[in-house]
């Protein structure tokens, strides 16, 4: 696979079809990978592809406005690109999406229930040899953790999240690593007025994490990056999965499945089953 990725990257750069290819390269420890920003065909051989390619590179695409970018995209990364396109954050013609099919459960826990291991959108798809193409993850597993939480009493859940959020250090790595968290001025950074406490108090930490989760309803593509980045191990995916489940059950909406779909937050249906909106 890696040969095909390098080949494509080389071709794109050599022909000046893109200004830069964003992919993965080996880190100094010899095992992990780090995001690679390659702007010359000579450097493409440093690209790698293996189960350590965790990062969602879609997060970097907004940083190069006007530039043509080639990007290596797993299924989840591609879903993020779809949402960014739906929300008019990227120009499709400036992107060359090198879709890579990843092996289910190869990268992390999230992969076991990945709805689409193949890029939802791509200009070329590089397949993994010997794998049944596009095998989805197990839908049942997808919400097992959320259902376990739902089954508990409200006070118990509150206690649990209290415990989790008490560790939050407000580093905002969850926000910074998230392709969907691109507000030019995050509510957490506003000072006039300040919407919630900046202090690492339980109150402020709750407000931060809950606000962020709500703003990702119908937008989170479950790339799992926030949970991976959180240094204190808060199970952020559980929050996001809950809202994902609600969006699916109530509106049959799945984030990142189609560029043409109207974003959930931007849709209004006069036949909405609830009357609060009328």
């Amino acid at each position, binding site marked *: 696979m890696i040969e095909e990725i390098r080949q494509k990257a080389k071709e794109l750069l050599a022909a000046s079809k893109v200004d830069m290819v964003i992919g993965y390269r080996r880190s100094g*420890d010899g095992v992990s990978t*780090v995001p690679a920003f390659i702007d010359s065909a000579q450097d493409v051989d440093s690209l790698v592809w293996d189960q350590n390619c965790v990062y969602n590179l879609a997060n970097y695409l907004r940083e190069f406005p006007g530039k043509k970018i080639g990007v290596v995209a797993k299924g989840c990364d591609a879903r993020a690109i779809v949402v960014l396109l739906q929300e008019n954050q990227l120009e499709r013609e400036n992107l060359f999406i090198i879709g890579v099919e990843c092996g289910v459960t190869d990268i992390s826990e999230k992969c076991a229930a990945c709805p689409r291991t193949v890029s939802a959108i791509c200009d070329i798809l590089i397949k993994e040899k010997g794998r049944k193409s596009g095998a989805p993850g197990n839908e049942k597993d997808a919400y097992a953790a959320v259902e376990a939480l739902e089954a508990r009493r409200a006070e118990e859940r509150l206690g649990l999240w209290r415990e989790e959020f008490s560790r939050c*250090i407000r580093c905002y790595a969850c926000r910074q690593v998230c392709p969907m968290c691109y507000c030019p001025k995050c509510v957490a950074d506003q000072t006039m007025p300040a919407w919630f406490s900046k202090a690492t108090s339980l109150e402020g930490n709750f407000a931060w994490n809950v606000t962020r989760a709500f703003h990702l309803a119908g937008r989170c593509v479950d790339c799992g990056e926030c949970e991976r980045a959180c240094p204190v191990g808060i199970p952020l995916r559980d929050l996001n999965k809950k809202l994902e489940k609600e969006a699916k059950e109530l509106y049959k909406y799945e984030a990142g499945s189609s560029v043409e779909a109207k974003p959930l937050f931007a849709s209004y249906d006069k036949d909405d089953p609830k009357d609060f909106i009328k």
Partner: protein
Amino acid sequence: MKKTVKKEALIALIENLMKDHEVVSPVETAGKGVFYRKIDKAKDVYLGPAFAVEPVKKFFLHPSEWICGCNKEEGTASPCPVPADDKKRVIFGVRPCEARGLVLLDKIFAPDDPAGYQDTSYIDNRSRSVIVGLACSVPDRTCFCVSLDGSPVETRGMDAVLFDMGDNFIVEILTEKGKSILGSLPGTIDAGSEKALEAAKEKTKKLVVKTVKAPDSLDASFKSDYWKKVSLSCLSCGVCTYLCPTCHCFDLVEEERKKLRCYDGCAFPDFTLETSGENPRPTKKERYRQRVFHKFDYFKKNFGENLCVGCGRCIRFCPVKIDISEVAAGAPIK
């Protein structure tokens, strides 16, 4: 003064200490890692090989510290005193790099020169605390203390130190403060254990495999495009600064008539944003360069040593694995 002490004896001592001291120690939190906590059960004390995620710094520079306030009154205002926390405190399990981090923070918040800025709350936190260190037995692959005048068994900044010798700890008392807390522990040390300790120390030092040769001055690299290249993947988050045992930047925040000193960090775009809208460090290049320069250049020029103790936290927890040791060592200074 050294003595060999049974692990149970130490736990018993901690149990006893809790009667009239606040006791802080690393505690294991299932599936989440190790965190320093104020403990109420001696058996919660974790003195194993795993490192705490957050450094002990937060007990000296609180992430959100109430520094002053005012009372709510009709038509007038009066200052409201901040409740002082003056209970004697013992902190167990502090690692050599974290303890040395405190020595570096002292230079800023509690300098020897009485004419220098003296931070009262930091100084109070320092003086009410006794630091019982724990020498490292299993350095992480991201640790590089040895390259920065440190070592997994050094004791700078500690009042006493524990060496894990399997069934026992060897306790070494380093200061009067340390003696006041651990002096009552029974035990002596025999020549054999003394020798075993020296051998173990040498062995542990060799386990730190990461080495870095940071240049003496980064000056010549300031304008280089290198800083753009190395910061391309940076997310501008707060992980590296908040988890660093020596980073100490803060922001002042007002909430409900309280003024709070909250952690802030040079990686955030808002850190240097001025009211006019001007931002002197507008991109990741300037921000990340600042962090590396503060650690490996500016501080050394002002205080004679690097502001990095090689604890490896920023490498371990950086969501995109930026390695400050590689970045500093690779800076183009010619």
